[in-house]
Every structure is written in C-alpha cells, then in structure tokens.
C-alpha cells in the first residue's frame, strides 16, 4: 500500500523544487544533532518523494517525519524556495490518518491533545501544580516525558483575569482583537496582561472575546487536520469586526496566518478565514506598523533576544522585535550564537522527544548564558519553558520575559 492517499498528499510539484543542494542541513536541529541524511530536510523530502512513488509508510519513514521539529529553519535557508512547511504539514496529516503508532505513543498523544488545546482544562492544573512546586519536590529524573513536563512547568503566580474590552489610551488608532491562547493563558497570564496594556497604551481598543478557544496550531503542526479545522472555524466566529488580530505567541500567529490555506476547501468559512488570516499580526509587527507613540522610560538592562522559530522562520518577523527593544533607552541588545537553530521546544516536540529536546535546550541555554545578558526575551511560551529548563540544568541564572513584558515595563516606567 502506497504511503499517501489523494487527500492533500505532499505536492509533487513542491517536492520537485528541491535541487538537493544541502544548504538546509546545517540549520536543521536533527541534522545538527545526529548527522544523518534521513533526519534532514533534504532527506525528509526524499522520503516524501519515495512515498509518492509508491513506497509504503514504514515505521522508519514515520519516525523521521515525526522527528522533524517543524521549526522551518530550512525554509529560511533554502535558496530554491522549497515550501517545506506545506510539505511536512501535509505529510503529517497523512501519517496521522494512515499510520498506526505504537500504543504508548498513541496514548501520550491522546493525553496531550485532551489537555493542551483547552485553556480551561489547563487552568484546572494550576492549583495542583502550584502546590507541587511549593514542595520543591522533584519526582522525575533523566530525559523522559514526565521529567520534561515537570522541568518545563513555569513558576506560577496569581494574576487577575482580563476584561473583555480595554479602551485605547488617548486617540484610537486601531481596533484590535487579542488572542489569549491556551498555555499562555493558563501559565503566563502576566504576559497577556502586559500585552493588553501595551496595546492600549499605543492607542488600540483591545477586544478579548471570552468565546475564543485554541487556534489549532498544535493540531495542524501534528497532522490532526480535522481537529485543526474545527478549532479554526470557532476562532473565525470569535473574532469579527476587528482591524487586526494581535497574537503574542509565535506558534499561534503562524498557524492563524495560514487559516486561508487550512479552510480553503470550506465554501462557507474559507473566505472569512482568509480575511481573518490577512488581519493577523504579531504584537511586534503591529506596533511597528502603527508606529510607537507611547513614551518609553529607560530600562538599563542587557537583553538577549531569542527568535522563536514560528516568529522568525515561519513569519519572517525578526527586525521588528529588535527595533522595539532597541528603542528603549538604556537597553542593550545582544545576539545569541546560532540563532537559527531551534531551542527544541517546537510545540509538543519536546514532550514527545525528551532526549534530543534536552540536547537542543542545553545548546540554546549555553548560547543564551554566553551572552552574559540580564534577561532573555522571546515571544513564545514554549521557548520560555524550554530555555529556562536548560538554564536551570546548566546551573545558570537568567531571567526570562516576553517582549510584551519588557515594553510594558518601559511604558509604565517600572523596572522589570
């Protein structure tokens, strides 16, 4: 039985764009770790082509597809413009439908997708998690799924709930919807609060619908297309009548920008999805687009900025956050070595692949610590957790903050 069926297989035309030059290899985290062709973008493309030629979807093939982080560093590196992101997404959907994984893996994936895309369910975990953290117990050792989850969980603090509407400070320049996310909402509510404040300070009316659920990023990035479409429709329904939909989580922003593609087959939602997708902006994008007006107070700190893959590679947004941070008086911006290599979070990849994720997290932590900066700033909750865990393992100290929190502190004139 051939690997792929006719429902959105990886496109032969897109595959043929690959000229086999190998420029993608040095930026692929799995190639950097393992030095093996089948775990490189070029190799994975080759496996997809084999599938199209009639080869069956073997365990080894699936293993290599699953090992892909979906970080899209290869898309940035590729001089021939291969749309690897489309290819891996379509391939993953096929794998999900047509390949039966071992029982343990299926159970783990089921558990993850029962939890992560549901902010209310995540919220239920907050209480027990805070308690566990207060005991300072570490029940799990060594790279494993549970240890990873334990190491990733950030220290929780209590933050008041967000209102559904926040008026612009001063003249209104735009009406924006704000995505509150799932992991972000449950574990980093202070980031959402800071984001809302910054938007308001820069002259935006901020609309925060309570009906919003998950954007479906984790689902689409892991081949669960039907589920992703369901989440997308609900999201389209939630956000109506906004000039922009502002996102402060890189993974979510990249998935939302692809909604037109995701719901292309849906005659009803398709056009609305495309309209919404065109209005999606990362926080740093919209602030630069509107042009900052709120006064910035000095923040005399050194900041290492980490490009989240779904912001840098997937959305091409690299200059804007740097510009925003760089314009804060007294703030010194430092660059990490090897910025294009993923920190190893990659959505739920670190939960599914604890050992290599730990290696990548350690590398990124080393680069971050080597900058000697006071603060690590990035725009994705997954990256926070991953890098913070790596820093802890290295015995280092490095505070982390979201771009929004740094801007918020500067605008409000408080220290971060």
């Amino acid at each position: 039985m051939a690997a792929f069926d006719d429902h959105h297989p990886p496109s032969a035309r897109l595959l043929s764009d690959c000229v086999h030059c190998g420029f993608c290899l040095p930026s692929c985290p799995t190639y950097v770790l393992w030095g093996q062709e089948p775990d490189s973008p070029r190799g994975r493309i080759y496996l997809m082509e084999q599938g199209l030629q009639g080869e069956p979807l073997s365990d080894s093939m699936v293993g290599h597809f699953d090992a892909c982080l979906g970080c899209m560093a290869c898309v940035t590196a590729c001089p021939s413009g291969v749309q690897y992101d489309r290819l891996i997404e379509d391939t993953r959907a096929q794998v999900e439908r047509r390949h039966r994984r071992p029982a343990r893996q299926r159970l783990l994936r089921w558990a993850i997708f029962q939890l992560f895309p549901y902010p209310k369910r995540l919220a239920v975990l907050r209480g027990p998690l805070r308690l566990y953290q207060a005991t300072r117990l570490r029940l799990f050792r060594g790279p494993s799924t549970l240890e990873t989850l334990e190491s990733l969980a950030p220290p929780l603090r209590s933050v008041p709930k967000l209102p559904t509407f926040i008026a612009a400070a001063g003249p209104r320049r735009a009406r924006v919807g704000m995505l509150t996310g799932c992991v972000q909402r449950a574990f980093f509510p202070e980031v959402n609060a800071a984001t809302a404040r910054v938007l308001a300070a820069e002259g935006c009316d901020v609309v925060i619908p309570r009906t919003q659920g998950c954007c479906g990023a984790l689902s689409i990035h892991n081949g669960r297309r039907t589920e992703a479409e369901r989440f997308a429709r609900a999201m389209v329904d939630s956000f109506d009548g906004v000039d922009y939909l502002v996102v402060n989580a890189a993974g979510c922003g990249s998935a939302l920008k692809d909604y037109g593609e995701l719901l292309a087959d849906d005659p009803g939602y398709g056009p609305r999805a495309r309209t919404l997708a065109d209005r999606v902006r990362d926080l740093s994008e919209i602030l630069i687009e509107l042009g900052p007006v709120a006064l910035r107070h000095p923040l005399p700190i050194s900041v290492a900025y980490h490009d989240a893959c779904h912001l840098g590679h997937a959305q091409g947004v690299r200059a804007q956050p740097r510009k925003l941070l760089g314009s804060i008086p007294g703030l010194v911006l430092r660059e990490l070595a090897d910025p294009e290599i993923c920190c190893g979070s990659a959505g739920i990849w670190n939960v599914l692949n604890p050992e290599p994720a730990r290696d990548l997290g350690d590398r990124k932590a080393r680069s971050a610590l080597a900058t000697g900066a006071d603060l690590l700033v990035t725009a994705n909750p997954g990256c926070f957790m991953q890098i913070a865990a790596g820093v802890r393992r290295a015995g280092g100290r490095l505070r982390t903050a979201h771009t929004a929190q740094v801007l918020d502190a500067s605008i409000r004139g408080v220290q971060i």
Partner: protein
Amino acid sequence: METATRVADRLRGRVRLITDRHELRTYECDGLAQYKVIPALVALPRTTAEVALTVQACAEAGVPFVARGSGTGLSGGALPHADGVLIVTAQMRDIVAVAPDDERAVVQPGVINLDITRAATPSGYYYAPDPSSQQICSIGGNVAENSGGAHCLKYGFTTNHITGLEIVTPDGAVERIGGRAPDPPGYDLLGSFVGSEGTLGIATEVTVRLTPLPEAVRTLLAAYATTDEAGAATSAIIAAGIVPAAIEMMDALAIEAAEAAVHCGYPEGAGAVLIVELDGPQSEVDAQFAMVTQLCEASNAFALRVAAGDEERALFWKGRKSAFAAVGRISPDYIVQDGVIPRTALPEVLRRIAEIAAESGVRVANVFHAGDGNLHPLVLFDDAIEGQAERAEAVSGAILDLCVAHGGSITGEHGVGMDKAKYMPRMFTDGDLDTMQLLRCAFDPDGLANPGKVFPTPRLCGEVPGRHRGVHPLQEAGLAEVF
C-alpha cells in the same frame, strides 16, 4: 549484495550502520541529483579507528567503498556503488585543535568548512578556501575535490592550505603524513592525495593552514550593459598589476534568478555585474581600491556600489553564493558546468556559449570566477518536456569542448567524479590517463576506493613488473634503519 552483508556482519555493534531501504535511498545521490545509485550499506563511523575497521572489512570482502561528507558535491563523486559501502563522515565533526600560534587547525573530516573559520575567527584567523557551499560542505570533501571558491585567485585552493593528513588507505591501514610544519620529506603525498576524489583512500584527520584575517576588506559591485564590458574591466584590473581577493561575474539570467531568491538588490537592467573584493593591509587596500574604482568607471560601468560595511558586503555576496540553487526558481531543472578557460578568452567563449544556447533552444545562465576564468554555465531545461534533457546535456558537452579547445580545463573546482569522466579523454591522452592511474594503483591495487570515478576506463593494476636495480629497496630500508 551478499558480500556487503558480510561487511555489515563484521561491523555490527562496532560502527553505526544503516540498512533500512528507505534510509539507504536518502543517500543515493549527492549534490548532483541526476545520478542515483542505492548503496548496499551505509556506515557512519565516528573515529579514525571505525573508518579503518570499515575499510578493512571492505578490503577483506572485496567490496568497493565510497566516501561521503555532506553530500553536496556537484560531480557525483559521492555517488554510491550498488554493491558497495557508503562511508559517511558526517558524524566525525570535532574540531580537534585551533592553534593560532602555529597558524594551524586540526579537524575531523566531517567538520563543515565555514565552522573552521568560525572557530578560528576569535583568534584573528580564518580558513581561506571558500566554496559557495561552505556553510554545509565538509573539509573532507574539500580535500577530496581540491575545492576552490571565489577567493582562490588570491589565496589558492584546498591543496595550498593542507599541511597534514591522516588517511586510511584502501587496504585499511592508517597513515599520518605531514603535520603542522611544512615540507615533509619524500614524495608529496599530501599534494597527490588532495584532489584525488576519494580514489586513494579516506582522510580521517586534516591539518589546515589558517590565514590571518585581513586588516581591511573592500568590496564593490559594478553593473555593466554587457559581459564583454565586464570582462574588459577584469582584464584592465589584472593588467594594472592588481590581484584582487576575488572577481566574480554574473550575467543577466543569473542575476534574475539570484534576485528572485535572495533579493540582493543588484542594479536593475544589468547585462552583467562584477563583484570585486580587495583585502590586505589598510594602506595597500586603499591604494588598490582607488585604482580599481577608476578602472571600473573607465570601463563603462553604469552603476558602481561600494559596500558600506559587513552587512552590505554580505548582501553583495549573497546573490552570487546562492546563484546555483536560485536558478531552481526560474527553471525546473538545470545542469551546472564547471569549465575553465584562459581568462583572456572569456569574451569569445561567452559569445560562443550564447550562440550554442540559441542554436539548441536552451537557456544558459552564467556565473563565474572572472579572475581565473572558471566558468559556471547553468544550462536550464525542463525534464518534463521531451528531448530537453538530452539537448541540455549536449550543450553542456559542447561548452566543455569549447573550454578544452581554448587550452582550458573540463573542471575548475567541482571535480571529475562520475559526471565528467567521459570528458577526460578530450583533455588528456591515453598516456596521460594511464600515468595518473599508476598513482591510483600504488594506493589501491584492488580498485576498491570509489571505483568508476575520474577515469573513463579503469586500468588493471596487476603485479608490478620488472627487475630491481642494484640492491633491493627493502634491503636498503633495512640499512637505513640502522642509522
């Protein structure tokens, strides 16, 4: 197949192996995707000892082996042998030592070319040979192909930057030649090995010469209406006694592709662009730069840009370095050629290439090292259209003939591999090729190291004929050891 299984049995548990069919197929070609052969087995050694073990196992089983670094070669040098073992060095990527006081670095063969420079830069040094694929190509591959790059007009090729090698010869023995000091006594084994395309053995450790980072670098981009004018400018620069660090040229079609790929912002409407780079001591660079700018202006450049800093300089180069892969955007398929001509023949040869292209209805984009006459015609075609592939191949061959006819070479830096083996007789006589194969027989009498590459017809090595003159050499060796 059977004998490769024997090799696998010998190595299992001692060297990492790949036997899964799907995974083996990902190794069936290198950067030259037109030729594909599935290897019987892939080995991924991590140390010299593992390489030696693998080669020994092959030697004992009479199984051929092919070495591969990052698999980015453009002549099919790492094309596997269907019954053979592909020995991949990608996991041998330690930088063993960086010794700026000796101006040397010692690295494993899987280390990426650019990573050597990255490791040396903090000490004020870099590794000079810079192929366009330097962000991914391995130093072991560079050694095999004697890779060049844009800066080899001034700085030479890989062979001018290797002072030591540890190699595994085709019988599985490990030899160390040279080291950090120059001029090892005896025959130039280093010079013989570099550029031998994997046919004499596998390099398992490489000692390279590091070059001091220049005090000053200045790069300019000049746009011309025609390649003739750009070529004339190049001649004028050479005639003025200046040897730039690099002079690169791209024609209109290549510029179009590069622009689409990386948005390098080259001047619009250019029939040719010239990138000239000078480096060295500040006073020298300043003096030369003034001369070069004058010469470019005098040669009718309609736009002249001087890179303001490192970022702009990188942007000038980005277009040139992505040119090959970038043509993938304007054509579904292409052949990249690698001919060399005496630089003075450039205008004439480019004209002929344009004629040949027009005659066969095939487009050719040109990118080249204008300083040393190394052309990279990119012959564009669409494999889906009947007959186009054959015509492209014919145009490719005609271009090589043109190069040889002008006293040039069929390959400036990509190597002969399996792609150009058939053209070797156009450049060398039977006597020439036979003599080269004497060297091969000395290293690899059983013909196991990368067979089928470089030479169109292999020479049987057989027994060494002839009497020995005077005292037998081995007796001589015995005497010498007494001293």
